[in-house]
């Protein structure tokens, strides 16, 4: 590396928890950029991409058939009109929330440990929101008429009903998708410049060069840039809370027993963060293993995320407790019946699996720091939590609707093969996008790692 000259003096001393010792500006830059620029397409990546893409094709097939036949191919019917579509929508959008929380809220809190995980957590947010958005659109039956939900002066002379949470949801989710995209792209600009400057191939130089828009790391650029990041973080933090609050309003504003409850907004937000951090772990653990990023995503990061799971999991557990308590304390016989039906009715096994996955397993094991630092255990727990959170949404949607006020209107919901194909298909869509992201863009923020090297070296002085 003759033109680069000697390495910089700022190197990391042992004892720094968020970065392995021995790193310099040059080494962090090279290590992360070579994953994209030098290593190219690896066999393992290709195998993963093939699998994800196959599932994505399953999604396309399911959607094509849906558009041909209509939503009748799903298991939804009266009384359960919402079914998988809304379960999956809430699940995916909840997963997205941890990404914004890591990059925005932890930035405001000046937590250095977010710096090596925020990039792929933000990408996760973006792709999870894309998956989430599919479901309400498809559930409409005629998705090409989605623009009817937007306020525009149409020839019919009608307007959306602005007092309805379902209209709020349109604004909340589309704002969230836009702001997440902006936040992610703004974070990428200096790294795209790094890739432009490190790329050897002409095409890569042109593509990264165009995307970097002429970024040159000027002091003036950085001052405006840092202010913009801070402001975006300040805007995104209340936004995240508002999005899942509005999602919970879709339920709570209805008078259905099991939905009509004031605990829903905080309990939904905590649940979103719970499942989102679990997804971050599900992604981070294989990534650091396959791409040898243990230097950047250290045991300390995993430990911190384990603690976040523990904290948010306890809020979720409190939500379950309060739901049960209020059903009896309210003295409302419909509420009481709803909770008894949930625990002992036809969907009781799902409820108890949910309690096991969300409360019993994680909230007993995660207290131990040995388990929080055990990569395999943490990976398995993260999968268990995601299953649990998906079941939670299933229980909320289905068990509340299937037996409400009048026994003559009761019914059962069974998902069809097309429900499953659409759901599994979005997992394919998510991983297709995510694998393309880790192949073509830096999965860890390079400039923030250089900043971390600088800060750690300063502190060691």
């Amino acid at each position, binding site marked *: 590396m003759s*033109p*680069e*000259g000697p390495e*910089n003096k*700022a190197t990391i001393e042992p004892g720094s928890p968020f970065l392995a010792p021995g790193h*310099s*500006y*040059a080494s962090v*830059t090279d290590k992360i950029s070579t994953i994209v620029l030098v290593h190219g397409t690896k066999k393992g990546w290709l195998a993963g991409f093939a699998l994800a893409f196959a599932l994505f094709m399953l999604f396309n097939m399911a959607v094509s058939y849906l558009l041909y036949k209509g939503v009748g191919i799903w298991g939804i019917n009266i009384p359960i009109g919402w079914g998988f579509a809304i379960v999956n929508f809430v699940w995916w959008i909840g997963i997205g929330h941890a990404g914004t929380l890591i990059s925005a809220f932890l930035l405001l809190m000046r937590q250095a440990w977010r710096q090596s995980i925020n990039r792929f957590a933000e990408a996760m947010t973006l792709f999870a929101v894309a998956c989430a958005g599919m479901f309400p659109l498809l559930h409409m039956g005629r998705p090409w008429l989605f623009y009817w939900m937007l*306020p525009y002066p149409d020839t019919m002379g*009608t*307007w*959306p*009903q*602005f*007092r309805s949470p379902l*209209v*709020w949801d349109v*604004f*909340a989710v589309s*704002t969230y998708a*836009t*702001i997440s995209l*902006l936040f992610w792209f*703004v974070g990428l*600009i*200096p790294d795209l410049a*790094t890739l*432009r*400057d*490190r790329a050897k191939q002409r095409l890569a130089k042109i593509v990264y060069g*165009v995307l970097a*828009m*002429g*970024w*040159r*790391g*000027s*002091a*003036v*650029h*950085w*001052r*405006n*840039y*840092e*202010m*913009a990041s801070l*402001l*975006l973080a300040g*805007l*995104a933090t*209340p*936004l995240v809370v*508002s999005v899942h609050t*509005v999602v919970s*309003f879709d339920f709570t504003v209805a008078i259905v027993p099991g939905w009509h409850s004031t605990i829903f907004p905080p309990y939904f937000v905590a649940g979103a963060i719970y499942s989102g951090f679990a997804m971050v772990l599900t992604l981070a653990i294989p990534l650091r293993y396959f791409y040898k990023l243990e230097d950047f995503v250290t045991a300390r990061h995993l430990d911190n995320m384990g603690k976040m799971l523990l904290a948010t999991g306890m809020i979720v557990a409190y939500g379950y407790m309060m739901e049960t308590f209020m059903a009896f304390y309210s003295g409302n016989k419909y509420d009481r019946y709803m909770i008894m039906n949930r625990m002992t009715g036809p969907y009781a096994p799902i409820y108890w699996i949910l309690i096991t996955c969300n409360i019993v397993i994680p909230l007993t094991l995660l207290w131990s720091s040995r388990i929080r630092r055990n990569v395999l255990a943490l990976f398995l727990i993260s999968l268990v939590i995601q299953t649990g959170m998906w079941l939670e949404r299933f229980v909320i949607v289905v068990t509340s609707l299937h037996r409400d006020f009048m026994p003559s209107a009761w019914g059962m919901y069974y998902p069809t093969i097309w429900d499953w194909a659409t759901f599994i298909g979005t997992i394919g869509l998510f991983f297709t996008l995510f694998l393309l992201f880790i192949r073509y863009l830096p999965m860890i923020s390079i*400039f923030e790692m*250089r900043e971390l090297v*600088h800060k750690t070296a300063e502190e060691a002085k």
Partner: protein
Amino acid sequence: MKRHAIYGLMAEFENSDELLIAAQRAREAGYRRMDAFSPFPVEGLADAVGFHFTRVPLACLIGGLIGCSGGFFLQYWPSVVGYPLNIGGKPYNSWPNFIPITFELTILCAGLATVFGMLALNGLPTPYHPVFNVSHFELATRNRFFLCIKARDPKFDLQKTKEFLATLKPKEVVEIES
């Protein structure tokens, strides 16, 4: 504006402290038109090159105000004037129900204004910039730090400025073709 044959002089440094001190010394020596380039944000560097005040927050505020008032009006006008509907006896202007969308649009417009304001204030996209003609400049996004004194500076004199920059102990001083 007079067109100079060269854009300015570029001094290359090994670390951020050297660059910061160099920028401060150049400022003390009376240079005003300069810029510094670093692979990560360096605290105090913007002040040292004479950039004290960022207008990004102003852009954010304006965007937020437009989003807030526009968002409320977007709901008020159809609900009260354009297509009034009696929903459960609620007043036409049921403003508490309009808060969520007003909030979302405030965030949306403030965020868009922040990002596009930041890009505009930074002059991005910039298809061509003379500093990219400097041979090692690609290291500005890796591990090297640069100070540029522009030819536009009233105190700029090719020979004298070169000598001055040499006193700051840079790795190298080069002329930037414009």
